[in-house]
Structure formats: C-alpha cells, structure tokens
C-alpha cells in the first residue's frame, strides 16, 4: 500500500465521520426533526437496495425487476428472527441483517442459476415473476402475519445504524467492483462472448453478482423492518421494485455515487411534491419522463462523484484566493 492510498483512505474516513457528526448534531438539536430523520433513514434503505440493484443491472447488465422480492425475504427473515430471539440489540440487529441477507442470497441463487441463462428482457420477466411469487407467498404463509402484516418487530434502526450500514455497503460495493471480480462482472455486461473468450467464467460471475446483489437487497429489507416495526406484504409489489429501478437508471447505471444522489434526490423531491397534493404523482411521472429524455444516461452516467476530488479542487482554489 503506498502513501497515496493510505491518505485516500484517511480522507474518506474523515469525510464520512465529519458528515455523520454534523447530521447527528443536527438531529440532536432538532434542526433535523423526526420527519426529516425518517426521510433520511428511508433514503438510506433506498440507497442500499438501489445500489445492490445497480450491481445486478448497471454492472452485470441484467434486467432485474424483482428486487422487492429479495428485500421482502430479507425483511421477514430478519424480523422473524428478532421476534423469536432475545439478545442484546446490536447482536440481534447484525445477526438479523446477515440472516436476512443470507436468506435472500439463497433465493437469489435458486432463481439465479436457471434464470441467468436467459437474456435481457426474459430475465426481467422471470425476476418480476419471482418477486410476485414471494409477495403472494407472504400473504398466504402461516407465519408471516398475512395481509394484516407482521407486527411487533423491534425498532433497531435509527439514523446512526442506517448511516453506517450504508457506508459499509457502499464501501463493499466500491471495493468489490474495483477488483478482478468486479472487472469480470463488468466484462459480462459489455460482451459475454468476448468475456468468455478471455477466460472469464461468465456463468459463475453472473450468478455470483446476482447473489451478492440479492444478499444486499435482503439486508436492506431487514433494515426496513427494523425501522418500520411492521411489515406489510402488499408493500413488496412490482411497483416497489420499479422504484429502485428508477433510482438506478436516474443516477446512472454503473455509478454508485449516482445511485446515492438519485436516492436522496428522489426522496426529497417526493416529499416536496406533497405540497401540490393532487398533482403530485402526475408531476412525479412527468419529472421522470423529462429527466429521461434529457438525461437518458442518468445524472452521472457511469462516472463517479468524488468528494475528495471536489474538496481538492476547492482547497486549491481557496489557497490561490488566500495567496492574494
């Protein structure tokens, strides 16, 4: 590890902690009230799930329209676990999230192995169908609480928990994508035949990428349950999957920072639109269409936004300004 890398890490960690400290302070002094806090937490969950979808769609290039299903699996697994056991909060939280992720990952594997032989839109429809099957199962299975929902989940997720969960997931994804494994996944999106011809086991990496994506979506689902305390199977429908899809495309397929920005932007735009009540959804739809027409590659395309670079540029500027 050279110095540049180490200093990069330090800068990143500092930035992460500073942002956390600021937001945390604002919550403490109630500048960020419960309401905004809630939006931030939800945005965090959206970031996690959308980022996982970005892995499957933006990087691996597979049309996945059933991420709400993986989320649901994660959510119910984590919630049922936490309801069943009686352990310290953080143990239950972490174990619940991991279990939720694992269960979603297992389902990702089961559906992924056959489905990933299909291409493009066919894969899309299979994942969509899978999501629907999960939703129907949750309505009908004996242990999920049915239509009335699963109640009595402990509230373990607050701003702090979700913030660091987002940090961990994003850091993981960045590290994963910028490695040989990530490059293998990217090459499949670009040209599967060529990838195979330079020695990439494409089937393996497709399934692997998909399972990792499902795992993270499951973790996101778990977090949703721990925040909301009640799970409603109706929530995990096709339109919910679509919401994440919109975030991914809007942010830029293949840009994690784009996903983060889009998730935050959409969360706040959505809330802002409540002020026009009746017209809200019409405007939302129009916004979406217009954004796509003018920015078909999403906000960031495949580029990543770097705070450090921005800060560097900024600090250079201020230095120059200070000089005179």
């Amino acid at each position: 590890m050279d110095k540049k890398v180490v200093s990069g890490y330090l800068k990143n960690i500092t930035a992460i902690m500073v942002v956390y400290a600021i937001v945390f302070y604002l919550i403490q002094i109630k500048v960020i009230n419960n309401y905004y806090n809630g939006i931030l937490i939800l945005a965090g969950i959206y970031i996690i799930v959308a980022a996982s979808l970005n892995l499957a769609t933006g990087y691996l290039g597979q049309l996945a329209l059933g991420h709400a299903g993986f989320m649901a699996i994660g959510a119910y697994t984590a919630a049922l676990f936490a309801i069943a056991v009686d352990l310290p909060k953080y143990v239950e939280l972490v174990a619940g999230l991991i279990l939720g992720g694992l269960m979603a990952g297992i389902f990702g594997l089961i559906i992924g192995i056959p489905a990933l032989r299909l291409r493009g839109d066919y894969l899309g429809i299979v994942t969509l169908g899978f999501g629907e099957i999960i939703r129907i199962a949750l309505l009908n299975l004996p242990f999920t609480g049915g239509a009335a929902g699963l109640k009595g989940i402990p509230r373990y997720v607050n701003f702090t928990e979700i913030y660091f969960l987002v940090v961990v997931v994003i850091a993981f994804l960045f590290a994963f994508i910028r490695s040989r494994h990530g490059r293998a996944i990217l090459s499949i999106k670009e040209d599967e035949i060529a990838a195979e011809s330079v020695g990439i086991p494409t089937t393996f990496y497709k399934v692997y990428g998909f399972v990792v994506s499902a795992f993270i979506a499951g973790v996101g689902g778990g977090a949703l349950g721990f925040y909301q305390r009640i799970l409603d199977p109706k929530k995990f429908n096709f339109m919910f999957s679509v919401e994440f899809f919109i975030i991914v495309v809007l942010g830029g397929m293949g840009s994690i920072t784009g996903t983060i920005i889009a998730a935050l932007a959409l969360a706040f735009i959505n809330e802002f639109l409540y002020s026009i009540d009746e017209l809200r959804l019409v405007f939302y739809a129009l916004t979406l269409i217009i954004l796509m027409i003018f920015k078909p590659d999403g906000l960031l395309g495949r580029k990543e936004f770097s705070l450090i670079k921005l800060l560097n540029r900024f600090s250079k500027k201020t230095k120059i300004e200070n000089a005179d």
Partner: protein
Amino acid sequence: MAQFIQQVINGLNVGSIYALIALGYTMVYGIVKLINFAHGDILMIGAYFGFFALATFNVPFGLALVVSMILCALVGMTIDRLAYKPLRNAPRISALITALGMSMLLQNLFRLLFGAQPRRMPAVIALKRIEIAPGIAISNLAIITILLSVGLMLLLEFIVKKTKTGKAMRAVSEDKSAAKLMGVNVDKTISITFAIGSALGAVGGLLYAINYYQVEPYMGMMPGLKAFVAAVLGGIGVIPGAMLGGFVIGLIETLTKGYVSTTWADAFVFGILIIVLIFKPAGILGKNTREKV
C-alpha cells in the same frame, strides 16, 4: 367432468382478453424493442373512451369500439412522438423507465380528470348464456371476445408477414439505419406500430371493461402485467405466441383457482412461466436464435 369443461371455457374467456392485450404488447415489443409498460394504461384509456361513447353519448357498441380504437391509436402515436421518439438512440432501459413514467402519468391523469371512483360500464351486449350441454354454458360475450381476439390475431399476423408495412416494421425492428437506406420511413413505421398496438389495446380495454363491468384509472395495471407475461410466455415478438400465451395463462389461472388454490393462482402462473422459460428460453413459440460469432 362438466365442471371441468366449464372451467376450461371460463379459462378461454379470460385468456382471450389477455391475448388481445398481449397482441399489442408483443407487436410494439417486436418492432420497437420496448417493453411498453404504458400499454396496460392504453387499455384503460380505451375503456374510458368506450365508456363515454356508450354511457354518455349512447352510441351503438360497434361505433363505440371503432371510436375508441381510433382515439387510442392517436393517443398511442402521440405518446410515442413525445416520450419515446427522443429516446430512440438512448439505452433501452431509459426508454423502459420512460414507459413506466408514462404509465404512472396516464393513471394519475385519468384519476384527476375522472375521479378515482369506478364507473359502471353499461351492459351494451344483452348477456345471454348459451347452454351447450347440461351444466356447461358459455356467454355470448365470451364468444365475441374469443372470436374477436383470434380474428385480430390473424389480421395482425397478415399485416406483419404479408404487407409492405409489415415488412418495413420488421426491417425497422432489426436495424433502423439500414431500413432507412432501403427507403423505409422509420418514424412513420413506428407510429403505425404504436397506432395498431394501441388500437388493439382499446379493443382489449373495452371488452375487459364490459366483461368486468367497470372502468377505473388503475384498471390497466394487472391485466397489463398478465398480458405482458402472456406475451413473454408465448415468445415475445411472435404474434401467434401472444395469443397462445394469453390462452395458456387464462387456462392456468382458472384451473388453478378451480382445482388447486385460489390464493396461489398468480404464483402458479408466474411459476409456470419461469419453468417454461427455463426449458424454452425464448418462450413457447419463440426461436432461440443464437448470435453468430
């Protein structure tokens, strides 16, 4: 036994409506390569047009159908011009999102315009049940629906396979610039595609609304999704496939409800879709053409 045959008839009736909607889906997909998620909402619009024609202006059913088809064709073409045309060269997923946006827009626009309350579709076709055997009956409406969907499928197949416009459509679907070099007006061809697809949606919508008595802004979502599944099951882009897929889905759904479980019926439909695709990755009638390397 009588009950089983009755269930099959029920299934065919449901299936024929899915088939009608699936035809429009498959047509647009086959040519523009766009999963037009707004197609279900075109169905809703068609139903509303039909509703107003029938309930407000009291025109005869045939005329209402034609008016609704023409208006929907215009709506379809306009949507294409405004929302999809600017994205012809953009990544396909962006167009997909636009289609989803369009779907949301139409639903909510119609909710604003005409309210969320469902409206009762007038019973335009005097409902008759024709007893074909003891305990087995089929309604005249079901017969009309089934015949109409088969007829339109044949017409569509003829248009795409045998006419010049159809040939242009297929050329456009493969390579737009090459089609241009052959003298094909790409924009016009795509417009026609949307017009036909949407007109079919209108037929589907009107029949759906009559079969299920009401119109409301969100009525297109579920049949739209099912029809899409039907199109994929049959082999998306393949016109007879859409028809077949529609009937298969209708049958599976009805028979599952009749004999297995009503609550799991949709899960069965999707489950069977998944299984079929695993063994026939391009759908029942789709050809799995491999890319030549």
